[in-house]
């Protein structure tokens, strides 16, 4: 598989807030964690041992697990541009919308004659992406039901 766990550890960040509302993060790294339940337990444990040393309010925490690309990949084509997004707007089963973007949507999939830059949803690869997303949940754990719109958009980028 191309994406794998690399040598880098899991990063645990605990956000501390002072009485003025300013925040800073205490960071710790851990190795050998194999489940999200274990990782969350490590986060809670780290927060608990910070508490006697800080007089701030421990308000939130996050964990981050880096994956590395182990397959060699070809240089992207000249026309690739991550600022050109494919924007897919889905409806969830509770009536909300869920928006997802694809960086550097392939130009061949965009109908340039359409003033909104509609994406060709009948293309097999696009249809496969849509089917995958429609079988997913949004960030709140709500099922995604169907695609509403798919079009090209431009957004800012940062240098990688």
């Amino acid at each position: 598989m191309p994406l794998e766990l690399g040598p880098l550890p899991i990063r645990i960040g605990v956000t501390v807030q002072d009485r003025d509302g300013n925040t800073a993060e205490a960071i710790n790294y851990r190795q050998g964690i194999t489940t999200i339940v274990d990782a969350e337990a490590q986060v809670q444990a780290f927060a608990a041992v910070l508490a006697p040393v800080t007089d701030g309010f421990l308000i939130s925490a996050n964990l981050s697990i880096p994956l590395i690309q182990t397959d060699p990949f070809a240089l992207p084509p000249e026309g690739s541009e991550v600022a050109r997004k494919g924007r897919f707007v889905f409806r969830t089963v509770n009536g909300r919308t869920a928006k997802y973007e694809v960086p550097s949507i392939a130009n061949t999939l965009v109908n340039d004659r359409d003033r909104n830059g509609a994406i060709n949803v009948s293309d097999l690869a696009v249809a496969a992406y849509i089917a995958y997303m429609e079988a997913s949940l949004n960030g709140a754990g709500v099922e995604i039901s169907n695609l509403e719109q798919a079009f090209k958009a431009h957004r800012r980028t940062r240098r990688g």
Partner: protein
Amino acid sequence: MATRITLQFNDRDGNLGQCSTSNTGLNAVSDLVAEANAYGSFVSGISDAALVGATLSRRVSLSIPSADNSASNVRRSLLLLFRNPADVLASIVVPSARVDLPYDTVGPYAGIRISPDVLLGPSSPIADLLTYLNGTVVRPDGGSVAFTEVIGGLLLNEE
């Protein structure tokens, strides 16, 4: 809460783009890695950028109030340096260090340093942290430091 799967892409000019989705059902990290690969294959099918990496991330709710935060200030931090016998260092920074920690009372570091003897002694203010670390601090690069000495000192940030 959901685990966020974020994919990172590079275009021809080296610009970095990201996209993400969430997964609430998987617990094993290996399953989440497989899910990241599945998501990556579908996105790569319609993108002409190169998939260069990914991150699994998760927010965790905390609610640990301070007993007395009247002096709290995140610009005042405690820098803990962990050193092994080969002089390899690792560090942990604790924001808004308590003002009543046992800082040195005499000497050139009075008021700003906690001596190694105190930090590793029987009444260490970081006893719970030492138990949690179990003798080893992991560095951001994945290396680890099996420490035999800890030095603590105030770090004042000017931001």
